[in-house]
């Protein structure tokens, strides 16, 4: 077997952590932290997604390295799309263009 058996207890601990993080992010959203709200909510979402991918989707136990490469590729392509697009939108106001 390329993936070894995961104990049920592990799944339950991951589930408890995910539920706590959901409560945490929901609770934090009730407080107005201004510019910090979105980065904190996003960071918690990333942690939750990583927990699901590593344990529920067995990425941690996957012995085929090519599967790790593909899962990373998904993130890399998405990052390229978002960073290169936003790099345009964010910097548009930086230089004054004559006649604009």
């Amino acid at each position, binding site marked *: 077997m390329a993936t070894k*058996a995961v104990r049920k207890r592990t799944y339950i601990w991951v589930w408890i952590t995910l539920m706590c993080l959901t409560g945490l992010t929901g609770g934090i*959203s009730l407080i107005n932290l201004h510019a910090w*709200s*979105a980065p904190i909510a996003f960071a918690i*979402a990333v942690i939750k997604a990583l927990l*699901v991918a590593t344990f529920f989707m067995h990425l941690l136990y996957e012995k085929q390295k090519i599967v790790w490469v593909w899962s990373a590729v998904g993130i890399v392509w998405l990052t390229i*799309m*978002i960073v290169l697009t936003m790099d345009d939108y964010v910097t548009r106001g930086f230089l004054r263009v004559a006649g604009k």
Partner: protein
Amino acid sequence: MSDTSLKLSGNEALNARSLHEQYAELDQQREAATLGMWVFLVTEVMFFGGMIMGYIAYRFAYPEAFREGSIHMLFMAGTINTAVLITASLFVAFAVHGAREGNRKLLVWCLLISMFLGICFLAIKGYEYHDHWVEHKVPGIDFQWDGPDPRHAELFFVLYFFLTGFHALHMLIGVTVLGIITCFAWKGRYTPEYHNPVENAALYWHFVDIVWIFLYPMLYLIGHQHL
């Protein structure tokens, strides 16, 4: 597989029937199936990624309109749905555990519970859509807004309906796939050596869960005025 000879002849026959001719052994077939599923999931990342890109660009341009739009989300419904999906994922993980151990009872029951939770998610989502309909928040058809920037608030709702609509469609497909898997599992088609369809359906389900994990803060948590 050195212990194959110890297994029941019934399982052996099933395993032999499940091995497609282009593969040398079941392990090789399973590796190909897992890799193929991950490649498909990456294309799904890009599918949702396009809409998320649109959300990021417009939220950057109109942060205030998006914040006002988010206030009209049903915060509790979104939070409960997040919990429902995470719990469904837990039971799908248990189902895979059951398949690996050859525990048919655990497999079938966990799949049924996951399907039930998936339907609960869709029902709550439907309740939310109904609420938006009654509140005249359906862009293009019936959209009324008293805030300062109705055009861009409408844009938030366009993205909301596309993102959650496509996510709900994926949920519907996920529930259907789990239903088919449950039928085969019930008939005893899967063995500890061969249960690729269970593993791949589970990967799909967890992926749809991850999409929601990101949609929840994007759509529900940027308003700060829920109480």
